[in-house]
């Protein structure tokens, strides 16, 4: 026994020592996938500054969420490979695969807190621009974007929205607007060929759907209460207009909108309280629910995953108007789905490489491909794509002619308020508080 244990001990120490030494010899990280496939299809007319000549090859690490089963993974991988190809010997971007989004957020937050922000990374609206700016750990892109050719490629207002005290710590990258999508067959069964244009009519329709045994609105309060939060945002805009967030939660629109949202829960599935996104999506894709909302990235999934040829039956609609509300019909809720950020660099070559890379991946030719393959929308101006599915074209047309697109509730509120939304909604739906109490809970969370 003693000998065996001594051997195990020795072995353990030896292998541990080996394991400590071994990784140094290994390649630091996987290279972006599909390296070979990339070069041929890369847009060759890329605008590349010839001025980038670092002293030695610069390596940039990039914890990246556009990998794995993400719909942007394939094209994004090609983009990175093309960059590494073109800048071979000068700069190299090393992708770190991040698939679990919550874990990714935790990691970025941890790294920033530890004072070691990654070279390249993306964030969404749960990170507040003011905090990112105050952290002092991020690069300012204003010099490269203000009044430059690169800056001119962005849609109007995109950059000014991201500018804080004249500095741009986060480049707006992926955008989204939220439309309403309905199952035209289920609506037809209930006697509707068009989607109603007012909330009153919408509730009348919901009654008709309910009589048919159909779930009118698949809603959720689990996870981040995503689809419910989107509806709340649309209702807020319809009632309070585009300036609804200006006065914070004191605006009476928040209470009124909560009443409307609560009413929608009369027409939802019995499992809505506590339901997650997968449950909500399941109801719509399984032909059980009639009216859905989500970002453009979801649109390809109607055809891919819906039963009974759902893809051909889903139609786009604008969010309804609220009688007596301050909103304008056609106004939409939207979001910055991803900003691009970079950790501060002490090395000028590295900083230059970061700019080169972000310029490279923001070329309209690449983004056009990325949009086509994934359904996503971007802040860089792009030509319309005739290959887009009809609902996506409808959504883009609506976005282009929208009188206003206002960031959704979670984006417009402090992080803590957005995080408190699901639990407050539970209370509202379960009747432990009224609409005013619901808003009070949100207010308390923000303090």
């Amino acid at each position, binding site marked *: 026994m003693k000998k065996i244990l001594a051997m195990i001990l020795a072995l353990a120490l030896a292998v541990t020592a080996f394991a400590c030494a071994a990784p140094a010899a290994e390649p630091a990280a996987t290279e972006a996938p599909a390296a070979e496939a990339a070069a041929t299809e890369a847009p060759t007319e890329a605008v590349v500054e010839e001025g980038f000549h670092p002293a030695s090859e610069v390596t940039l690490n990039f914890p990246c969420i556009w990998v794995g089963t993400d719909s942007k993974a394939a094209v994004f991988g090609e983009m990175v490979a093309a960059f590494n190809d073109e800048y071979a010997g000068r700069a190299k971007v090393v992708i770190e695969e991040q698939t679990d989004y919550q874990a990714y957020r935790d990691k970025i937050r941890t790294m920033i807190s530890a004072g070691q922000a990654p070279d390249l990374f993306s964030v969404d609206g749960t990170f507040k621009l003011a905090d990112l700016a105050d952290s002092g750990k991020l690069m300012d892109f204003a010099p490269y974007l203000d009044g430059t050719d690169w800056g001119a490629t962005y849609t109007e207002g995109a950059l000014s929205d991201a500018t804080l005290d004249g500095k741009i710590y986060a480049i707006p990258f992926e955008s989204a607007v939220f439309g309403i999508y309905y199952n035209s067959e289920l609506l037809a069964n209930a006697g509707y060929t068009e989607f109603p244009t007012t909330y009153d009519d919408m509730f009348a329709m919901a009654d008709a759907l309910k009589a048919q045994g159909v779930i009118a609105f698949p809603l959720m309060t689990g996870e981040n209460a995503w689809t419910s939060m989107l509806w709340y945002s649309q209702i807020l805009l319809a009632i309070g207009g585009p300036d609804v967030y200006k006065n914070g939660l004191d605006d009476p629109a928040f209470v009124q909108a909560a009443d409307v949202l609560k009413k929608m829960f009369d027409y939802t599935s019995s499992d809505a309280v506590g339901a997650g996104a997968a449950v909500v999506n399941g109801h719509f894709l399984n032909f059980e629910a009639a009216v859905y909302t989500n970002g453009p990235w979801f649109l390809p999934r109607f055809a891919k*995953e819906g039963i009974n040829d759902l893809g051909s039956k889903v139609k786009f609609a604008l969010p309804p108007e609220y009688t007596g509300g301050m909103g304008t019909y056609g106004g939409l809720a939207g979001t910055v789905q991803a900003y691009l950020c970079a950790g501060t660099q002490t090395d000028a070559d590295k900083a230059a490489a970061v700019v080169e890379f972000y310029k490279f991946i923001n070329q309209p030719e690449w983004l056009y491909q990325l949009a086509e393959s994934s359904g996503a929308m971007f802040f860089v101006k792009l030509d319309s794509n005739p290959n887009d599915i009809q609902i996506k074209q409808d959504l883009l047309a609506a976005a282009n002619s929208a009188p206003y697109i206002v960031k959704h509730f979670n984006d417009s509120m402090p992080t803590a308020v957005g995080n408190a939304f699901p639990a407050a909604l539970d209370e509202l739906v379960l009747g432990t508080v009224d609409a005013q109490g619901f808003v009070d809970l949100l207010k308390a969370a923000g303090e």
Partner: protein
Amino acid sequence: MTKRNETAYLNAGDAAKAGLGKVLKWILMLFFAFYTLFPLIWLIISSFKTNTELFGDPFSLPAVWQIGNYINAFKVSGLLKMMGNSVVIGGLSTVLNVLCASMLAYCISRFHFKGREAIFTFFAAGILVPLNALMVPYYVIISQIGLYNTRAGLILLYSAIGIPMSTFIIRGLMDSLSREIEEAAYIDGCGFFGRYFRIILPLSQNGIVTAATFQFLTCWNEFVFANLLTSSQNVRTIQLGIRYFTNQFSTDFVSMYAAIVISIVPSIIGYMIFQKQIVSGLTSGAVKG
């Protein structure tokens, strides 16, 4: 009633009682077997469905058995490599952990010295430390000692975070070992190390194997720090492989289930071998008392 009749009656009653006991026993055993097997069976069946089916009727059989989910799972870049990493990281950290914990438990359990209960309470309190709150310090410590993105970093961290739990389990079982054998050995001139290696370690084998089992499973299932402290697929573990099917907007549950099924095969086999080892290696005789 004659005495004999009474006895017969009692025996019949006893027999009935024993029969009832037997039935009860089997009901319990079968209930728990069903209850614990059910998740596995559900997981396996679900891993052959489509996602839409899964959320339409989670308890039906698949209309078409989707072998493709398993093909997807195996397509994950380096799933086998990740499994290998998990085996190496889990195995080495378990050995390191159990070694450290058993040596500590030996000192605490077998010797009376000042502050031993204090040390033990300190360690036991370690079980309560919520690791979610330690992301920043662990990130800093592991990067500072230069083990970010290495298997060694995870091995070290996992060994450490399991020490309170392992010490707790091993000490609990060491406490019930009889003092006499040890004292006899002491009188026979067996020293500190001899008593540990020749007597205490073999006798507390069960506790050590139990602690090792939990330690290994903890490592095998750990995700947060595996993701936080690595950046390269070469050193990553199976839990990151399983989450390959998750992204910002959706999760491909059925393919993920397929990956989970693949990933639990080695742990179940490993567990069965381990358990066999315990049974065959059992030291019978006056261990207790």
